[in-house]
C-alpha cells in the first residue's frame, strides 16, 4: 500500500504534538543564553525533579570517575560543564515530548538508543574537527526526529513503511519514500520549523543523508558520518539493523585515520553505556 503525504499534511499533524512544558521551554530558552550563570541554571534545573535526578546521575556516573558523590545540582553542573548540561537538558526535553504512539513494529527504545549513540559519536567527531560539540550532540540526537513525527502523526501509514522495509530489506529512508511519498528528513525539517530550531540545526537535520549537497553545512557532514558509525556499532541492538550508504566525500572531509577511528569506536561505546542509562526515557 502506498500513500502520497505532503509537507502540509506533516505540518498539520504537528499540531497534535503535546507542547513542551512551560518550564522546559523556559529552560531551553535560557540555556542558550551565553551570559547565564551556574547558580541561575542550577535553580532552573532544580525546578524539574526528573532533570535534577538525571543531572546528578550523569555527574556521579562512572564515566566521570569521581571519588566523592555530588549532592547538589550546582555541584553537578559545575563539574559537568555548561556544554554537557545544555545537551542534557535538550535531550531530556525532546525525549519527553514523544510518547509511544502504538505503531506496530516501531521500536521507540531502539530509536532513542540509535539517536543517543549518534549524538555521542557526533560530539566526539566535533571534538576531533574542532567544531562546537554541543551543537553536534544535539544534532546527532535529533537527526532522525522526523521519524517520530511520522510515527506519531501517521502510525498506520508508518506500519506499512516498516512492513516494506522488512519485506524488501531496504534502508528506512527508501521505504518511507516508496510508501509515503515523503521521508523523515522532510518531516524533521517541518518539526525544526515548528519548534524554531536554529538554521545550523535545520541544515544538519535536512542534510544528514546528503551532506555533499550544496549548503548542507559541516554539521550535516559530522552527523552523516556519526549516523553511519552508530549503525555500524550496532548500539540500537535490533535484528534488522542496516548501515546506510556513507558518503565518501563526507568521510574524507573528516580526515580520520585508522587509529583515530579505533579510538572513536571505543570512546563512543564507553560513553554510550553511561549516557544511555541517564537519557533513555
Amino acid at each position, binding site marked *: 500500500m502506498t500513500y502520497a503525504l505532503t509537507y502540509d499534511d506533516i505540518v498539520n499533524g504537528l499540531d497534535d504534538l503535546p507542547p513542551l512544558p512551560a518550564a522546559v521551554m523556559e529552560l531551553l530558552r535560557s540555556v542558550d543564553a551565553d551570559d547565564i550563570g551556574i547558580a541561575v541554571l542550577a535553580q532552573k534545573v532544580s525546578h524539574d525533579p526528573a532533570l535534577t535526578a538525571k543531572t546528578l546521575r550523569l555527574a556521579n556516573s562512572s564515566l566521570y570517575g569521581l571519588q566523592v558523590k555530588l549532592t547538589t545540582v550546582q555541584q553537578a553542573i559545575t563539574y559537568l560543564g555548561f556544554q554537557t548540561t545544555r545537551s542534557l537538558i535538550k535531550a531530556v526535553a525532546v525525549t519527553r515530548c514523544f510518547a509511544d504512539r502504538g505503531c506496530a513494529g516501531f521500536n521507540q527504545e531502539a530509536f532513542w538508543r540509535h539517536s543517543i549513540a549518534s549524538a555521542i559519536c557526533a560530539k566526539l567527531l566535533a571534538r576531533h574537527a574542532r567544531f562546537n560539540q554541543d551543537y553536534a550532540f544535539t544534532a546527532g540526537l535529533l537527526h532522525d526526529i522526523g521519524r517520530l513525527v511520522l510515527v506519531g502523526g501517521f502510525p498506520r501509514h508508518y506500519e506499512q513503511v516498516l512492513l516494506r522495509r522488512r519485506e524488501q530489506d531496504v534502508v528506512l529512508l527508501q521505504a518511507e519514500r516508496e510508501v509515503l511519498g515523503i521521508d523523515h528528513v522532510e518531516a524533521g525539517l517541518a518539526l525544526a520549523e515548528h519548534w524554531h530550531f536554529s538554521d545550523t540545526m535545520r541544515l544538519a537535520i535536512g542534510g544528514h543523508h546528503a551532506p555533499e549537497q550544496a549548503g548542507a553545512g559541516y554539521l550535516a557532514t559530522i552527523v552523516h558520518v556519526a549516523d553511519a558509525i552508530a549503525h*555500524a556499532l*550496532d548500539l540500537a541492538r535490533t535484528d534488522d*539493523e*542496516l548501515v546506510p550508504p*556513507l558518503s565518501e566525500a563526507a568521510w574524507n572531509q573528516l580526515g580520520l585515520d*585508522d587509529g583515530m577511528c*579505533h579510538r572513536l569506536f571505543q570512546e563512543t561505546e564507553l560513553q554510550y553505556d553511561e549516557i544511555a542509562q541517564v537519557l533513555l526515557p
Partner: protein
Amino acid sequence: MTPVPRPIALAPGPPATAPPDELSQPWPMVRRRVDLLFRSAAEAPPSRLHRLILAYRMGREPPP
C-alpha cells in the same frame, strides 16, 4: 630397577595452530554480524568503515 614417574595427565590444551583470540570468541559469528550490518553495500567492495568495524570487533589493534 629405577621407578619411572608416571606422566601427569593434563587437560587437553588448545591446538597449537589456533590463534589465542579464536579460543575465547565466536569470531565467525562476529564477522557474520558485521557483514550483515553492511549488507546494503553487498555488491560493492567492502568500504573502509566496514573493514575498520570488522577489525575493531575482531580485536585487531590499528597501526600506531
